[in-house]
């Protein structure tokens, strides 16, 4: 379980997040919605340990992971998979190397096997030796998803993973994402401002506006 309590973050004299409390239980699905600039990405970064909150705490499996002004547990030790808004693939690594990066702790053979499974699940196994710049936008998103799920994280954060894709591709990838989520018992925190995506992912729906969190009916 990953949870945060009374999180506050500000920038340039403006409150980005204010008193945000959220818990993501194992296997739970939460869709976080809200307009642009509402603080959705900032909340994900705080939960992931990429940003220290100015107020409040973050706990991972009951252990304090972040306190005000300090990250106690680094992101790589929080068992998180993260799909960024842009694919954020490392351009100097092949698709296979991108996916293998998060599997470095495993024995070589097992890491290779996991990599193949993740690429197959995202239907990009044929692209393993390509560089990210040789892929289309849709293929890059698939690889980003494969990279996030390959280490089998307990929490999967997806920050508007289908943004700026055309509707056909978006529909196809949405099916893939929901399929991958359904296949695992991973807890999912899915950020979007698209109603159809939120409906497809399902689970609890939360609404973030003006830095404050509320539930949406």
């Amino acid at each position, binding site marked *: 379980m990953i949870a945060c309590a009374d999180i506050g973050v500000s920038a340039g004299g403006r409150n980005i997040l204010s008193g945000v409390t959220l818990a993501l239980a194992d296997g739970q699905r939460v869709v976080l919605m809200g307009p642009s600039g509402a603080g959705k990405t900032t909340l994900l970064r705080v939960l992931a*340990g990429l940003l220290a909150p100015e107020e409040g705490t973050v706990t991972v499996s009951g252990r304090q992971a972040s306190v005000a002004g300090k990250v106690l547990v*680094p*992101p790589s030790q929080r068992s998180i998979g*993260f799909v*960024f808004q842009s694919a*954020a*693939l*490392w*351009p100097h690594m092949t698709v296979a190397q991108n996916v293998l*990066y998060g599997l470095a702790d495993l024995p070589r053979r097992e890491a290779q096997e996991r990599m193949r499974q993740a690429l197959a699940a995202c239907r990009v196994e044929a692209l393993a030796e390509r560089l990210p710049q040789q892929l289309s936008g849709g293929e890059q998103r698939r690889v980003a998803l494969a990279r996030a799920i390959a280490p089998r994280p307990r929490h999967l954060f997806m920050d508007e993973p289908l943004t700026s894709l055309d509707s056909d591709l978006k529909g196809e990838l949405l099916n893939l994402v929901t399929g991958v989520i359904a296949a695992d018992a991973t807890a999912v925190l899915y950020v979007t401002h698209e109603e159809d995506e939120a409906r497809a992912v399902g689970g609890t729906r939360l609404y973030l506006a003006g830095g404050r969190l509320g539930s949406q009916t």
Partner: protein
Amino acid sequence: MSGRTWRICGVLALAAVLGVPMAALAGDAWAAVRMSPGSLRLAVPAGRSLTLLVRSCTLSAATALLCLAIGTAAALVLLAVPTRLRWLRMAVIVPVIVPPYLHAVAWMRTAEGLRVLLRRAGLALPPFQGFGAALWVQVMVYAPLMASVALAAWSMVDPLLVDAGLVQGSSHRVLRRVILPLMLPVLAAGTLLVFVLCMGDLSVPSLFSVNTYALEMYARFSASGRTADVTLLAVPVVLLCLAALTPAMRSLATVLSTPSAREGAVASAWRAAGAVRAGALFGAVVLGVDAAGLCGSLLAGAQGATWAAVLDALPQASVSLRTAGGACLVSLVLALAAGPLVAAGNRSARWTAAFLLVPLALPGPLAGTGASLAGVLAGGLWKTVAPSLLLAFRFGPFACLMTGARLARLDSATTEAGRLFERRRGDYVRRIWLPTLGPVLLAALLLVAILGIGEVSGTLLVMQPGQQPLALAIYNYLHYGGSGTVSALCLVLLAGLLALMVPALFLWNRGWRRA
């Protein structure tokens, strides 16, 4: 003026300022080889020249690699500096504008002070001379440049790529597998540039009694006046420098024409940890010591400088300003004419860029020889303008490349819209072209002025008697004593360089933000 006319003007300007000295050198060498084919042997290093070439390469390569390590490490610390302490970055990087021989003066004084202190404690320190001293000073000269390059390289790394690494790997792993590989092309370019700058500089090695290839070229020209010998002798160095500059300039041009990945982006969560943090701190401390030592020793030395000495330096300062001003004017013409050629992005752009690299690859003494030779051919007026033309020859290509990179980054739709909506003649130039290109162009010219005011390697060979610029006066006094006068001259020179650097940085930032 139509695009074709502009291109013709560009080619003519390049041919006149850059082509004539190079053609004069090549023609002179060719004539010498035809008369005496044996002189071609000068171009093949053997015996003494081979020893000197190996020594120059060793000194330059060692300097470049140490600068890479120290500069990159220091940049990692400077990156973590909180916003309110950003001025620290500037403080550490400012020594970039200080000419090498001023660093040498500062370190000679620091070493001498240390020797006196240690002698009192009964310890003897060997004299601060020779290869080790020259290497130390050169590292101090170019490490701030490498730190600047490393900061530029870091600014091009997308923070999201770093954060994506942090989610799945430790800080060390992200540095090793993500950050350094992404910074590598620019870091390699900076290292190669430092190598080339060291190969062409004779001031520091000569002050520490290290005989190098560049010094040999100068000595040979001074002793015999045979320009062809210097040209032939320079062939291996020029080839080496061109080989190093080609990939370096390609990467640096990418830096200039790529917007910073960090503009408006969130800051990455990456922080140096453990041994990396210790190493980075060491690098920052070294740069800090250099900046502090430079200021401290020059200020301490300035106590021996009198107002009379400062006032005596004013005519030399005036020569420096006049010469640098002339170089800026010529470079302005070059940049305006050749910038669009570089920005075109076609085959002729590549040829132009390659042509611009050649003067940068020529060691200072050879460039001076070329200018001197062109002066002999042209006679009369040339002698008056030769120093400015020499500086434009050596540093004008930087202005052309910077202008070209800026033009390449201009959105063609913006310029077309500017032309389309122009209601009064000249509106486009006044309200679109100048505000977007002007700051970068001005910053490029100030860079030419900064480099020109500090230059000695080539100026030594073309300055007329009684027309000594500040840099040359300092260099000469360093060899023949006069420490109070040197301090006064150094202070005047530094004040002038700082006065140029502040607006240059301001304009550069402003111009780039508008891109």
